[in-house]
């Protein structure tokens, strides 16, 4: 999550159109006098420890109990929606074109790169089922799941909200997201399903019945939905 601040990155000043700027030393500008860390897109960043993430998750759990998952999801949604506008601006500035004129996969990779540099993990988007109205996203090294470890259930509600919010703004259609496989369930990576509410409800129901990610993918691809 970032706040805009006016500090110029020396590499950006010299090479404003440099697209390969996601290395640690290129992407972030540290200003020891002001105590700020500003990224390439002029967002202010904060460094946090894993204790911060544990504090956030457990503190919320203590405050609102079982509603903490939904709260994290909603926070993620708002973040994703705001980030979609933020992204639209910097994409246009960097590439001199509207984001809707760009190739979709290129656009998505470009959106996620700042998150990768910030430590939210690498991703892989599976758009194979886009025409059926859903898609899958894999996250490798989720900051939340990596911190909480194997707790036997999905924990990346913030990410699910972020994807729901961003893709809703991108396609201008209400979309939701659910994590159907998580590193915190002992899996090697996290997997998210993005789609309309009916599909997310179906996936959630199947998960409660004990279905795994592969079962859910299979059922969605065969066109199955809740009756």
């Amino acid at each position: 999550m970032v706040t805009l601040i006016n500090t110029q990155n020396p590499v950006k000043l010299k090479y404003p159109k440099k697209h390969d700027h996601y290395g640690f030393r290129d992407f972030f500008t540290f200003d020891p006098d002001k105590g700020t860390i500003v990224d390439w897109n002029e967002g202010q960043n904060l460094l946090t420890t894993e204790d911060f993430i544990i504090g956030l998750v457990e503190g919320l759990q203590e405050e609102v109990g079982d509603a903490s998952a939904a709260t994290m999801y909603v926070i993620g949604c708002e973040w994703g929606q705001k980030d979609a506008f933020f992204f639209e601006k910097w994409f246009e500035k960097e590439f001199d074109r509207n984001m809707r004129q760009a190739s979709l996969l290129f656009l998505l990779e470009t959106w996620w790169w700042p998150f990768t540099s910030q430590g939210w993990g690498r991703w892989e988007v599976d758009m194979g089922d886009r025409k059926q109205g859903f898609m899958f996203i894999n996250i490798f090294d989720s900051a939340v799941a990596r911190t909480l470890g194997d707790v036997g259930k999905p924990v990346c509600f913030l990410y699910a909200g972020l994807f729901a919010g961003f893709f809703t703004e991108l396609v201008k259609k209400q979309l939701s997201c659910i994590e159907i496989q998580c590193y915190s369930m002992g899996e090697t990576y996290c997997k998210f399903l993005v789609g309309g509410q009916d599909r997310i409800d179906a996936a959630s129901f199947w998960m409660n019945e004990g279905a795994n990610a592969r079962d859910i993918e299979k059922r969605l691809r065969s066109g199955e939905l809740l009756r």
Partner: protein
Amino acid sequence: MLSQLKRLSLEVDGRYASDAELQFMSDYVKSFNLRLQTYQKLQELESKLIEQTYTKMRSLDPTLFMQGKDDFSNKWKMDTTRTFRYVAIALLINDPDTLRERLLLWFQTILHAFGMERAADVTYQILQEVVKQDLTPPQASLVCPILELTRRSLGGVSA
């Protein structure tokens, strides 16, 4: 080299470095003249090597430069030139880790988004063959491992 220096400065926190830990610096100093010569040669031959690679690729498979009906030869030349310059500086300062962090990890995802991994795989394979024709074996032995790292990263061979 820069990555190794950074690692060394972190590892020798509050103590002196051992001879073994300093070995990479003397290795670098010994190889510096060869690195500089090779770097300058790459600079001099850049357009020739890239043009030769392009011609070989075209005769091998002209569809490598096609995406649907679009011919992206010019874009290929720009991208290959840019990557070639990154390879050259990685060779000069002996720092493939920085090449990977600053360029390859990002560029890999962009080429994947455009389905260009096969073209990248062939590019950096042929570039190694072409480079060997103009460089001495010791010079080529410095460049080719970095071109191979580039091929493996961008060609979809490894993540």
